[in-house]
C-alpha cells in the first residue's frame, strides 16, 4: 500500500516538466513573500486532486491558473500549519522556562523530558496538520474542518498511526535520497570533467563553478518543485487510504 503511494506520487510529479519549471521560477521569486504563498497554494491543489481521486496513475497535474485563488489557498495552508506547530513550540518553551529556574541534575532531567515530549508532540502535530489539510481539502476547503480534531483522529485511526508515521518517515527518506543523489551525480560528472580538463591543461576552477551553478539551477527548477509535488501527492493519497 505504501509502495503504491510512492510509485504513483513519483510518476505523478514527473508528468509535466513545464509545470515544474514554472514552479521553479515562482520559487525563485519567493523572497518577495507573495510567490511563496502561491507555491503552498499549488501544493494544496495537488492535495485537493489527490484526496478527491484514487491511485490510478491518470490524474493530470492541477492547472497553474487563477493565481488569486491559489494565493488564498496558500494563506489558508500557512495559517493551519502555523496553528498546529505553535503547540509543540509552546510546550518546549514551558519546559525551557521550568528548566531555567532549576539547577543541577533536576534542570537537565526536566530539559531532557521536555525535549522528548516536544518531539512526540511535534511528530503528532506534523501528522495532524497534514491530515488536517487533507481533511480541509476533502470538505471543500472549510476552515473549521482543518481543526476538527475528532474527525481527523478518526481518519488517522482508520489509516493506522503506524502506517501514517511509516509513510511519513519514508517520505522524508525518499526526499533526502533523491536530493542527495541528484546533487552528487551532477557533482561527480563535473568532477570528472574538471579532472580531465585539468589533465588536458585547462583551468578546472571554472568548470567546478559551472558545475555548482548547474547543480543549483537543477535543484531550484526541477528537483525542488518535483519533491514538493511528490510530498503533497503522497500525503493526499495517504488520506484516501482510510477504509
Amino acid at each position: 500500500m505504501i509502495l503504491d503511494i510512492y510509485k504513483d506520487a513519483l510518476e505523478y510529479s514527473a508528468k509535466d516538466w513545464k509545470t515544474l519549471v514554472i514552479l521553479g521560477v515562482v520559487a525563485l521569486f519567493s523572497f518577495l513573500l507573495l510567490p511563496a504563498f502561491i507555491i503552498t497554494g499549488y501544493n494544496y491543489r495537488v492535495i485537493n486532486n489527490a484526496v478527491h481521486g484514487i491511485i490510478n496513475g491518470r490524474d493530470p497535474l492541477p492547472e497553474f491558473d487563477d493565481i488569486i485563488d491559489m494565493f488564498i489557498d496558500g494563506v489558508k495552508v500557512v495559517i493551519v500549519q502555523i496553528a498546529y506547530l505553535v503547540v509543540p513550540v509552546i510546550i518546549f518553551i514551558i519546559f525551557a522556562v521550568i528548566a531555567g529556574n532549576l539547577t543541577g541534575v533536576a534542570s537537565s532531567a526536566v530539559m531532557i523530558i521536555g525535549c522528548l515530549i516536544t518531539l512526540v508532540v511535534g511528530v503528532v502535530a506534523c501528522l495532524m496538520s497534514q491530515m488536517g489539510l487533507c481533511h480541509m481539502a476533502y470538505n471543500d476547503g472549510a476552515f473549521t474542518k482543518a481543526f476538527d480534531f475528532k474527525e481527523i483522529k478518526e481518519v488517522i485511526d482508520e489509516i493506522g498511526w503506524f502506517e501514517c508515521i511509516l509513510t511519513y518517515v519514508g517520505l522524508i527518506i525518499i526526499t533526502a535520497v533523491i536530493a542527495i543523489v541528484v546533487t552528487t551525480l551532477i557533482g561527480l560528472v563535473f568532477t570528472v570533467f574538471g579532472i580531465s580538463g585539468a589533465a588536458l591543461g585547462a583551468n578546472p576552477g571554472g568548470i567546478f563553478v559551472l558545475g555548482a551553478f548547474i547543480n543549483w539551477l537543477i535543484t531550484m527548477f526541477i528537483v525542488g518543485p518535483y519533491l514538493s509535488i511528490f510530498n503533497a501527492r503522497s500525503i493526499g493519497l495517504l488520506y484516501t487510504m482510510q477504509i
Partner: protein
Amino acid sequence: MASITDCVSEGLKYPFNDVKKLLVLGAIFALLNLATPVSLRFTHVPANSIYVMAALGIVSFIITLFVMGYQYDVVKFSIDKREDLPGFTDIMNIFVKGIKILIVAVAYNVIPAIVLIIGAFLAGDYTGPAVVVILISAILFIIAFFLQIMAVNNMVANDSLGKAFDFRQIIDMISNLGWGKYIGIVLFTFIVLIIVNVAVGYILSFISLFIAIAANNAMIVSVLVGIIQGLFITSYTSLFYNRVCGSIYREAIK
C-alpha cells in the same frame, strides 16, 4: 452559501474588473499620501510653518472624506452584487456619504477613546489601574471595530444613518451569520491584508533603495514611494477590504 474563502478571493479579484477606476482611485490616494502632513513633515515642509501644515491638514481631510464616500459606494455595490466599480461623477453625493461614514466611525470609537484617555491620565499616578483601563479600552476598540463593519453595512444597505445605530438589528444579523464565522472572515481578511502589505512594503523598500541610489534626495524618494503606494497598493487594498465587508452583509441576510 459561499464560504469565507470565496468571499475573500472574490474581493481580491474585484478591483481588476475596472482597472481604469482603480487607477483613478489610486491617483486620489496618491494625492492623499502627498497631502498628509505627517509624511512630508520631515522632508520638505518646514516644521514651523503652521499655516502650511493647517492647509495640508484641511486638504487631506477633504480627500479622506471623498475616499470614505467612495468606500460607501463600494460597499453598496458589493451588497447589490454588482461587478463594476462605482463611478466618480457625483462628487457632492460622495462627500455626503463620506460624512455619514465619518459620523459612524466617530460615534463607534468615541467610548473606547474616552476610556483610553482616562487610562492615559491615570498612568501618571497609578500605574496598576492604568494598565487595566488601557487594556479595557483596547478590548472596547476591538468590539467597536467588529460592530462598526456591520453597522456601516446596515447603514449602506438601508440607506439611512439611523440604521447604523440599530444595535438589535446589527447583532441579529451577526448572529444570523454566526459569530464564529463573522470573526473568522474578518480575521482572515486581515491576515491577507497584512501579508499583502508586508510583501508590498518589502518590495517598496527595494524600489526606494533604487530611487535613493538614482536620485539621492530624501524628498524625491518619499514623494515617489508615496505616489507608488497610493496609486497601486492603498487603492487596491481599500477596494478589497470594502468589497469583503459588503459581501459579509450579503452572506448575513441570506
